[in-house]
């Protein structure tokens, strides 16, 4: 059977308790300008490149803050059927999302929340800015790496790669797709608290300083990402994580 057409991440939604504060933070740190829509509890952030980002103000304290990637799906119903077949959970069924189209929310068997967006027409946000600190990577907990590779193959049509000799990590390369994906398996998965998106930055040190000035915080140390560069985790004022990724000499 030929592989299915892969689903790509088109939108990254960041839940916040204070939309105005979050807008100021993401503009100050990443240069993403916000455009409020609807009743003012939602704002799109112009990253200049797919995926676009969005802020969603959640008043209900029962709903945690967090970061959720949206996969662009031609038919949400088909994806939800696959999610159910391979052990995932449908957290929110397919619903209308105004002029955007339809959405649904799911969770994989390892607790990673991945939402779906079925746009009414071809997904082509009108970026006003040049790409600034684009979101390029998603890292997911996958204690059972084999099962996770099978899950995302079925649900999203993703194929994963490995580095010979490295048995705890499978990845979907960033070079050929808008957003690369890493599955962290085995015992190392336990070190990963939550699904983490990463934005590419030119200068990790400089952006890190902006995080502090804008009211966020940073993971203690930067780490060297295999082959590619340096990473550090930035936490916004709500505690949402956004990885900072600085290219190494070889690039991503």
């Amino acid at each position: 059977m030929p592989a299915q057409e892969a689903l790509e991440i088109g939108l990254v939604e960041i839940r916040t308790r204070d939309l105005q504060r979050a807008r100021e933070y993401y503009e100050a740190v990443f240069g993403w300008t916000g455009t409020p829509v609807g009743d003012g509890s939602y704002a799109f952030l112009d990253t200049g490149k797919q995926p676009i980002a969005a802020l969603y103000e959640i008043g209900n304290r029962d709903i945690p803050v967090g970061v959720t990637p949206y996969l662009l799906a031609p038919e949400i119903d088909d994806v939800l059927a696959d999610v159910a077949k391979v052990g995932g959970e449908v957290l929110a069924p397919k619903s209308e999302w105004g002029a955007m189209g339809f959405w649904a929310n799911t969770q994989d068997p390892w607790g990673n929340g991945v939402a779906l967006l079925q746009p009414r027409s071809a997904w082509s946000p009108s970026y006003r800015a040049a790409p600034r600190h684009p979101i390029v990577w998603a890292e997911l907990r996958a204690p059972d790496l084999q099962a996770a590779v099978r899950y995302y193959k079925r649900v999203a049509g993703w194929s994963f790669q490995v580095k010979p000799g490295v048995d705890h990590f499978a990845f979907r390369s960033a070079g050929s797709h808008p957003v690369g994906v890493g599955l962290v398996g085995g015992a190392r998965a336990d070190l990963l608290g939550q699904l983490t998106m990463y934005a590419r930055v030119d200068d990790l040190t400089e952006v890190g300083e902006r995080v502090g000035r804008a009211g966020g915080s940073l993971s203690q140390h930067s780490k060297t990402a295999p082959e590619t560069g340096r990473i550090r985790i930035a936490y916004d004022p709500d505690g949402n994580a956004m990885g900072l990724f600085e290219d190494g000499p070889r690039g991503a």
Partner: protein
Amino acid sequence: MGRDFRRLLQGVPCWNRRTQAIYEQHGVPLHDVVLQSRAELALLCELIEREGVRSYLEIGVWTGRLVTALHELFDFDRVAAADIGVVESLGLPLRLPFGVDFFHGDSHSAAFVAWRRALGPVDLVLIDGDHRYDAVRADWELARRSPCRLIAFHDIVGDDPGSAGVRRLWRELEGDKIELVAPNDELGQRESTMGIGVVRGPFPRPGDLEADWPG
């Protein structure tokens, strides 16, 4: 109607002007791309689809881009690869599809022979390793004594001295041979300087005794 592989391969970096320039300067294509012409790769994909290839072995993977792209397109039931891992010493990454059965070593070694035997039947074997005549001939001898349906070679045409061994072997081979040859658009070529040759089996043919295995 078959899939449009030219379109499906658009995101796959293939041999381009930059690769060519690096190759002309250094004699080695120090570039993390599929070392194939995109047009010829599309022809290979059409053949894979037409022939219903479900298992694939690549000997000589460079950075792993080709085996990865093919596995993404065809979701093979079984995918295997062998490479000595030279790219890592050249500062390039080596990445392979998840679930690949990988032999990290010399395809002319006794260990490889044992690994290949254990691998069992494979629909398509692509030989794209050491291009010197003796080396590619040894890869062919091993491949044709193992159960498979199709054996392919890269670099069967052109005048690159580095591929002379493959061209000589290709000329010498007999049987049902298919040539997948198209100019590389990304180099503005009028004639191919690479080409993929495929020998149709099944292999081993009668008379190719197990006892003849080299190594």
